[in-house]
């Protein structure tokens, strides 16, 4: 079974049940995605959740998402227990609290983060790691907005 997220190449790549293709190539350990509604942020999370939760239909699962942890209000207390995961936080402005922000800021690479966020919440991240989702070549891709060498 293929992994949705490949840790080594730092790429999240899969096709959902409706044929939508996702191909997100990350630049570093943490990425903040912002931007307009209806760009596919929540859909991406919903599809990944189905691969994580659908244990009963394991034989039909096209992908393995074991190395992904999607944070919700119900499991946010488990954030500090994660290791070796791509941690995805959708609508982070509704979920993040000070303690979670501290955990994320202090994480030096045990996990990686994809954070969908509309307003600044204290995550320490340079503009190099801010991006938007966009449709390109029939895939939903991640587009970073700028790159300055010293901001890496």
């Amino acid at each position, binding site marked *: 079974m293929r992994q949705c997220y490949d840790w080594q190449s730092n790429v999240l790549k899969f096709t959902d049940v409706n044929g939508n293709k996702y191909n997100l190539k990350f630049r570093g350990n943490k990425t903040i995605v912002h931007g307009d509604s209806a760009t596919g942020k929540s859909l991406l999370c919903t599809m990944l959740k189905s691969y994580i939760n659908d244990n009963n239909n394991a034989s039909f699962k096209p992908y393995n998402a074991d190395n992904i942890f999607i944070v919700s209000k119900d499991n946010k207390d488990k954030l500090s227990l994660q290791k070796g995961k791509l941690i995805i936080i959708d609508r982070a402005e509704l979920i993040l609290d000070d303690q979670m922000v501290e955990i994320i800021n*202090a994480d030096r690479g045990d996990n990686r983060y994809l954070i969908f966020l509309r307003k600044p919440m204290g995550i320490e991240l340079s503009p190099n790691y801010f991006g938007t989702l966009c449709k390109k070549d029939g895939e939903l891709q991640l587009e970073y907005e700028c790159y300055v*060498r010293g901001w890496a």
Partner: protein
Amino acid sequence: MLYIITEDSNSSRDFWQCVAQTFRPVDSFLLVPFPSGSDGQNASGNTTLKAQVLSIFPKLQEGDKVFVAVDCVANNTQGFSAHDFVKWGTRLCMKKEVDFVATSYWCFEDLYLSYDEVLAMYLKNPMAENVVIGALQYVHDNLQNGTDYFDTSQEIQNFIDLHNSAGKNREHFANELLMEVTRALKGNGHFAITKSAGAFHKSAECWLRDCSDIKEKMAPQQVINICDKKCKYCCKDKGTVDKLIDLDTRSICKDSDYQLQQI
């Protein structure tokens, strides 16, 4: 005209003022004053950066440059997002065909942590600690290579084990490390960099100020004991221009889009 904007009156403001004074004609730059707060006192901090840009906007003319020295380009607090600010400033200044430039380092400390001479001087220090040497070498090399250093490596972890608060985030780490390293160089002259206002006129003045000016304030015996006998700085007995050019060519400045001399 170059307009220099800083977050507050700390050492970074002194530094950039000195750079402009050194490399530009005296009437070709302005250190933008802080706006007045509700109590009539000068307000500072990253939440005043927009106000500072707006205060000079009516005066801006094509070809001018707005230079913003942010303390940390990764600050995204509830009242301020460096990312949004840089985007906003760039768009605003574009309307008048004015360049909007932000400092090209993660935080001010990176400038000196990447400086070959800081590493060289610390290595020559008989009191140098192995944990600090390891962390400094690792940070220096990563900065020079344009890569992030705040990672899970043993060098970083060892330093955090000694300085708990350094593990909070990269900016804290950089600050703790630079203070530790430059404090250890104290016996060789005034090299201790701190965040406090005026540091480059006091505890860290040897990095920037003309050696002859510094010596004038010192007792003759101190000059012999410290400057002549103990100072290991490669720019010993030199002036501000030489010191800044050395920093410019032997730190992350050399790979940035603009160098100190191009300010």
